[in-house]
């Protein structure tokens, strides 16, 4: 059984088909990449999977269970977490409180082992991403790179079965990118299943073994990074048709 | 009975639709949910009552019809001016900040309310006696209706149609439509938002003010400093029923509002007291099922 299964997913906005008959699956323990030119429908896909949009047709299954059309918080509690492309921190709360909020969800409460308190657990999460110094700072004072790390820490607070990262490398400097790559590698080693949508192909290709290419809402290729790099259709889509 | 319901329903729908049209215009063009809409209803009516006295003294008896029409026009213009000044001073500074707009506009209502208390000094403030010209009833289909109500409804209907034509045909109207559909594109086309917003504020206040004159002079005939709250609630209910930003929807909403009110008033015993509650209950049901309203353009919910 696949951990995440997307079957014939379709979403239309008026006359535009944002996602068209898309199918793919992710197995436990994989790092799966999704790439495609801008406007290809990647974020729409994420929004559909995580419950922010309702598909017109198709099914989404998590651990065999049908989660199509469920509201976002229920999906999160079932073990599918996500980050946002443009960071969405809780500005008025201190950094550590951002994590504590996630620990207040039904799933979050379960993940706090009986001896620890929410604060303790939250501090651990912050340490994992290297933000423990910023613990008491209101989130609005953090730099962009720190906020990206906070996004991930917050998603991981739920100890999800699978986490969807929406452009985790967006706007990061080379050093921050390197740090992020290492963080994701560590997450993978800890056993988490990760799906990444990303534009920075160099960083992405170091992490993933399997990648899917989307264009105009449809899957045009899937395979290992090497296979994709040589795929004629993919090259056309990114670079334009050869004259 | 049925004839009564139909007639009264249509008559009240006209005036209510006019009232709500200003609200929907303001939202459609500038995206502001303007809570002072009801306040201009009140101000317009107060201006009217003052000018009524002024004009009836100074106009000779042969032109007495003017003593009715002129105050309406004058009070509308005055209200429009007050509205654009108010808009320029306050709402314009905080465009886009939703909380601030809410706070400032509700505060504006209270400011106007307290100013009326200040000037008139008591809870009641204003009486509109029936002018001789308009006294008497007309009988249609065995139902006796007062002249003033019919006149009010007809005037409201004409103005509503005029508004529709304004938006559909004139350059200004098209500019408004453009702004309501795509704000940035309209700006790129050279439409000056500052001027358009002020104009919209003035027009919508003017509509509210005429609606005020029409409604008050054909029904309750008294005003008070707190009479701004009900028109606001009514406009909101109508506009949500029909959909924010859509004139067509406002018409439909007005019809629903007018008819549901009339039906309850004429059929339910003691219905007069809960007449206003019924549309709200309808509104709540609509909201539960379809927050956009029936013809809504903008989605007001997240996602």
């Amino acid at each position, binding site marked *: 059984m696949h951990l995440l299964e997307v079957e014939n997913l379709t979403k239309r906005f008026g006359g535009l088909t944002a996602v068209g008959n898309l199918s793919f699956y992710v197995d436990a323990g994989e790092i799966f990449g999704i790439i495609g030119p801008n406007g290809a429908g990647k974020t729409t896909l994420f929004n559909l999977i995580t419950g*922010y949009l309702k598909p017109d047709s198709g099914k989404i299954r998590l651990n065999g269970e049908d989660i199509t059309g469920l*509201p*976002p*918080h229920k999906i*999160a*509690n079932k073990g599918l977490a996500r980050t*946002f492309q443009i960071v*969405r921190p*809780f*500005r*008025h*709360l*201190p950094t550590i409180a951002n994590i*504590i*909020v*996630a620990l*207040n*969800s*039904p799933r*979050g409460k379960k993940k706090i082992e009986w001896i620890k308190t929410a604060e303790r657990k939250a501090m651990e999460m912050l340490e994992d991403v290297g933000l423990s110094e910023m613990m*008491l700072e*209101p989130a609005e004072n953090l730099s962009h790179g720190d906020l990206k790390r906070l996004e991930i820490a*917050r998603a991981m607070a*739920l100890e999800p079965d699978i986490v969807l990262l929406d452009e985790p490398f967006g706007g990061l400097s080379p050093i921050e990118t390197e740090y992020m790559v290492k963080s994701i590698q560590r997450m993978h080693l800890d056993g988490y299943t990760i799906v990444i949508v990303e534009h920075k192909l160099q960083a992405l290709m170091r992490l993933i073994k399997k990648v899917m290419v989307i264009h105009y809402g449809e899957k045009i290729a899937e395979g290992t990074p090497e296979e994709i790099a040589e795929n004629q259709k993919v090259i056309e889509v990114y670079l334009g048709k050869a004259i | 009975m049925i004839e009564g319901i139909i007639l009264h329903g249509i008559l009240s729908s006209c005036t209510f639709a006019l009232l709500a049209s200003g609200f929907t215009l303001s939202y459609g063009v500038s995206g502001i*949910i303007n*809570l002072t809409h009801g306040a201009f209803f009140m101000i317009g009516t107060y201006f009217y009552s003052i000018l009524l006295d002024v004009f009836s003294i100074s106009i000779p008896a042969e032109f007495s019809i003017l003593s009715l029409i002129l105050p309406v026009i004058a009070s509308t213009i005055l209200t429009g001016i007050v509205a654009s000044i108010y808009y320029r001073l*306050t709402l314009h*500074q*905080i465009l886009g900040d*939703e*909380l*601030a*707009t*809410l*706070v400032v506009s*509700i*505060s*504006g209502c209270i*400011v106007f309310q*307290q100013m009326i*208390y*200040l000037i008139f*000094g008591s809870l009641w403030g204003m009486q509109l006696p029936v002018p001789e010209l308009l006294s008497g009833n007309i009988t249609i289909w065995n139902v006796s209706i007062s002249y003033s109500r019919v006149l009010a409804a007809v005037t409201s209907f004409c103005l509503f149609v005029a508004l529709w034509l304004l938006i559909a045909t004139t350059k200004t109207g098209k500019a408004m439509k453009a702004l309501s559909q795509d704000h940035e594109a309209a700006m790129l086309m050279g439409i000056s938002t500052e001027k358009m917003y002020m104009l919209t504020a003035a027009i919508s206040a003017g509509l509210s003010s005429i609606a005020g004159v029409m409604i008050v002079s054909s029904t309750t005939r008294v005003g008070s400093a*707190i009479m701004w*709250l009900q028109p606001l*609630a009514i406009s*909101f*209910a109508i506009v*949500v029923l029909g959909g924010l930003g859509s004139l067509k929807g406002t018409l439909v909403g007005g019809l629903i509002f007018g008819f549901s009110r009339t039906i309850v008033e004429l059929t339910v015993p*003691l219905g007069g*007291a*809960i007449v*206003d*509650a019924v549309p*709200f209950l309808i509104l709540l049901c609509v*909201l539960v099922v379809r*927050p956009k309203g029936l013809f809504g353009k903008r989605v007001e*919910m*997240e*996602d």
Partner: protein
Amino acid sequence: MVVKYLRKAYTNFATYIYDIPPRMLALLLIMIFALLPMTRALDSSTLMMLRDASVMAILAASWDLLVGRTGQMSLGHALFIGIGGYSSALLFMHFGWPVWMVIPVSMLAGAVVALLIGLPCLRVKGSYLALLTLAFPLLLERAVYYFRDVTKAEEGIPPPPRLPAFFQGLIRLDARIAEYYLTLSLMVISAIILYKIANSKRGMVFVSILDDELASKACGINVTNYKLLAFVISGLFASLSGCVAVYISSFANPSFFGIRWSVLPLVVTIFGGIGTIYGPIVGTYIYYFLDMYVFRKIINISEWHYFGLTWEYATFLIFILIVIIFILKWPRGIARAVVEKLEDLEEARPIEELEQKMAKAD
């Protein structure tokens, strides 16, 4: 944790001006208020003013929890004053229930009404919600007139006997002073409870809803339920406010839950600092002080008739105008502006000290 952040802000304020830790400051204020009547410096009308202010402070604090902390705008909080007030007045008038039974039931009534209203209304956001809530006090007014046999509409229901006889006998105090203490203690208790809720982990979730609902949902939070919770808690305390108001002063008639009591919490909260819980309380006292004491006693504004205007109604007007000006100049509230200014000063301090040292060294 949010407590620590807010304390930091408050500490800046308190220690810069008073050099006293904020908890001590609050305790000090409570003690001053508690001992005030003993000094016999207060006459009957001032006691009444403080009593009314305490009751309205509960309303304002409850409003702030919903609006300032959870971000759900309510322009119809007067509804709860009506619910609390009428339920207590009716329970007393028709069934003769004693105070200690009436208060919890009134509060419960408020909570239930909040739940019923919240279910359909909290689905919409911002201005939409504001307008919806605006309509509810009107509906209550209609209901009151419709059931006029029961509620006696404009005539109003006379307030129940001022205070339970035994309470008065026990303390052997003048009725006014007893009321003062009663309302003061209710306010303090409510304020503490609301503050604790706002700064608990639940409170953090409330703030997360205020900041970013979508992100909150992604964290597994059932945002709708939390919004309802905030609304219900708010309704609970707001109707307490109405219930007590009926006991101490008003006849229960439709005007006592008029629009004024929906706008007052808003105005007072903006003034005092939105989202702080203590800010609205402070703001309420300032408002009552200005209105009752400064304007009426000192300036004696009801006697003014310049230009043929009735200046008595000017107090609210002035307050509102001040708020409008504040919002236009400082859209994020003056409390934040004050705090930010103080933080700037705080940061500037070390530099000044350094400059002084350097000047001395020369």
